[in-house]
């Protein structure tokens, strides 16, 4: 045990000296800040209008209830603004008739939306007079926020594995692995010592990110379970990368290649229809993402977590067993 801790402490020490520990401590905070800044801004987005300043202030005041408003100096400036690459729709007084000004490449939905809002304004539609009541299910968390947090949880788990892979290859290049090979520590002990960093840092990162982004009411035990199994995937992948690769470029290639299945799983869950989902069932990140998604939505049941954990662990363990001999050999 003492030797295992020694290996872990060497990694921490080297990582502290290398600032990696500081980065890992910082990364969840940086991600959390980005999400907290980003999501409200995206959530507020409906449509963007541009007006000529002073032409019709009451119109502007009215439409501020529905869309984001930009004011420009004159008609030429309006045309310039509308012609820019983002989707901004202009409104101007064309000989007494208020007209929508578009670039021409906006989506049909944007054009319809803009017409509808101007129509409301022209007809003094007061939403307070609506024949409608608005109720809600009490969900305050925007699904986009959950998506980003979930994605970044996945990235933190993957990062842990990447660090292990790079760490091992560096030791191979420096030949310090050979030095360890002639100490009493067993290979298994060495592997465990190397893995600790891939376990602790992602778990810490997950908790930090989740709490920083306001998901404090989630099931903590479920988060621990999912973080642990997610970390295991990262560790297995890390050892795979570390043992199969002999230099930094090969590790870099592996890391780059890893993004395909990881992002592929996210894209499949978010964008593909149900009939294509089965293609991704064999990838453990699919279930990590799915599990975290349910967890963040407070919809995860223990049987779900158990099942997903199984689907995550089974391929990971199989790969680990397959690689075991290779890992021991690769550490030579």
């Amino acid at each position, binding site marked *: 045990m003492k030797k295992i801790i020694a290996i872990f402490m060497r990694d921490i020490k080297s*990582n502290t000296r290398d600032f990696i520990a500081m980065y*890992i401590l910082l*990364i969840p905070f*940086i991600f959390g800040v*980005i999400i907290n800044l*980003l999501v409200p801004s*995206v*959530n*507020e*987005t*409906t449509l963007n209008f541009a007006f000529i300043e002073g032409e019709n202030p009451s119109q502007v005041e009215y439409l501020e209830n*529905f*869309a984001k408003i930009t004011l420009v100096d004159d008609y030429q400036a309006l*045309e310039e603004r*509308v012609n820019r690459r*983002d*989707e901004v729709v202009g409104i101007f007084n064309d000989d007494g008739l*208020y*007209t*929508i*000004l*578009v670039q*021409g*490449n*906006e989506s049909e939905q944007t054009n319809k939306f803009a017409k509808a809002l101007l*129509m409301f304004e*022209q*007809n003094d*539609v*007061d*939403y307070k007079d*609506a*024949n*409608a*009541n*608005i*109720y*809600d*299910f009490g*969900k305050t*968390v925007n*699904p986009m926020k959950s998506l980003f947090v979930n994605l970044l949880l996945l990235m933190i788990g993957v*990062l842990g594995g*990447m*660090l292990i892979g*790079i760490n091992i290859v*560096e030791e191979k*290049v420096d030949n310090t692995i050979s030095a360890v090979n002639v100490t009493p520590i067993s290979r298994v002990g060495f592997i465990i010592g190397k893995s600790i960093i891939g376990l602790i840092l992602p778990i810490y990162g997950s908790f930090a990110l989740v709490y920083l982004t306001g998901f404090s009411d989630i099931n903590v035990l479920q988060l621990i379970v999912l973080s642990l199994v997610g970390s295991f995937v990262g560790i297995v992948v890390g050892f795979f990368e570390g043992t199969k690769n002999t*230099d*930094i*470029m090969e*590790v*870099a*290639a*592996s890391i*780059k290649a890893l993004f*395909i299945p990881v992002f*592929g799983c996210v894209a499949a869950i978010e*964008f593909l229809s149900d009939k*294509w989902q089965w293609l991704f069932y064999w990838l453990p990140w699919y279930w990590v993402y799915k599990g975290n998604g349910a967890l963040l939505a407070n919809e995860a049941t223990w049987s779900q977590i158990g099942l997903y954990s199984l689907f995550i662990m089974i391929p990971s363990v199989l790969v680990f067993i397959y690689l075991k001999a290779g890992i021991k050999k690769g550490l030579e």
Partner: protein
Amino acid sequence: MKLWHSFLKELKLGSKSFYFYMELLMAVIIIVILTMVVPENFESKANEYIFLDLDSNFEEMFIDSIYASSDNVTLEETILEIGKDEFNVDLYETDEKRIYIFDNEVDMKKTAEKKKSLGVTIKLQDNGMFFDYYLQGYESEKFINIVKSVHVLDAVTMQAEYDKIPVKSLGGTQDVLTDRENLLPLFLYFNGSLMGLFIIAAYIFLDKGEGVIRAYAITASKVSTYLLSKVLLLSVTSLVTSFAVTFAVMGFDFNFLGLFILVLTSGFFVSIIGLILSSYYSNIMQSFGVLYILIILLSLPAIAYNIPAWNPAWIQAIPTHYMIIGFKEIIIENGDFMYVALTSLVFLLMSIALMPVATYRFKKTLTVGG
């Protein structure tokens, strides 16, 4: 000539490296995914879940309005499965949406909540239709105001007034890209440009680890030649993979010159950034945190790409924002080549301006690490 020889050496080293072939393999995998797994267009119809608490006359009026809203409307009595629950619904499918009409409010609300979609109960109040909307809870105030505003005027008046609103177009044409084609700029900027940040750092640390940078530094060849040869190698792999994937998705319907110059110059720019960053560290472990965060930050414009109406100033300050737009201009019909050319020129100029910084940093830190 020295640049040419250095580049040839890098090509030779690259061809003996697993990385080179992994790049090609990844391009093949991306092509397979894009052409065979990703559908031409994603499911775009919105789902509405409705419960009609109306008498038969008003119910009939409502159903008539569904039929009037589209040329193609189909009706199917079906069972909707939500988790373990099954609900009997009448499904009206139009060109733009799927309207599920439930026979009770509880089932409708349950479905709307589970599916994170809009749910509505339409009832009679004061001899007119009244709408109870069930939203999720995180919708913005602006969105809620829009929903409410739809139910102030009657439908006939609303349509008539809507048709009166004039629209003036400045002459642009709608970029008609399929959803699959729309993914291409994201791939091009991520794989072709952004990952260059990380890969060039890996190349440099590999050479630092072998110590060959020091040997190179005491030759008559400039350090900048060494750095440029690395950038060129990266450019070659980026060009090959970018063209391969673009051909697979677009066929010959894209701007070849535009793609060539944008991949080259954006890759050059990102590589220079990677070179400068890697000069501050002795090995890849030290630099990895910064690279990781930078890649995430530079990926943020992808969000604005998917949500065109969201385009805050700070997103526009991120260089990759212009990369993605440029790649889109390359693949749309009548794309703006001048924009692509200008963007490429700016990246080239920035790269040239930053190159001395990278060279200076490398000269300064030749004996550090490795």
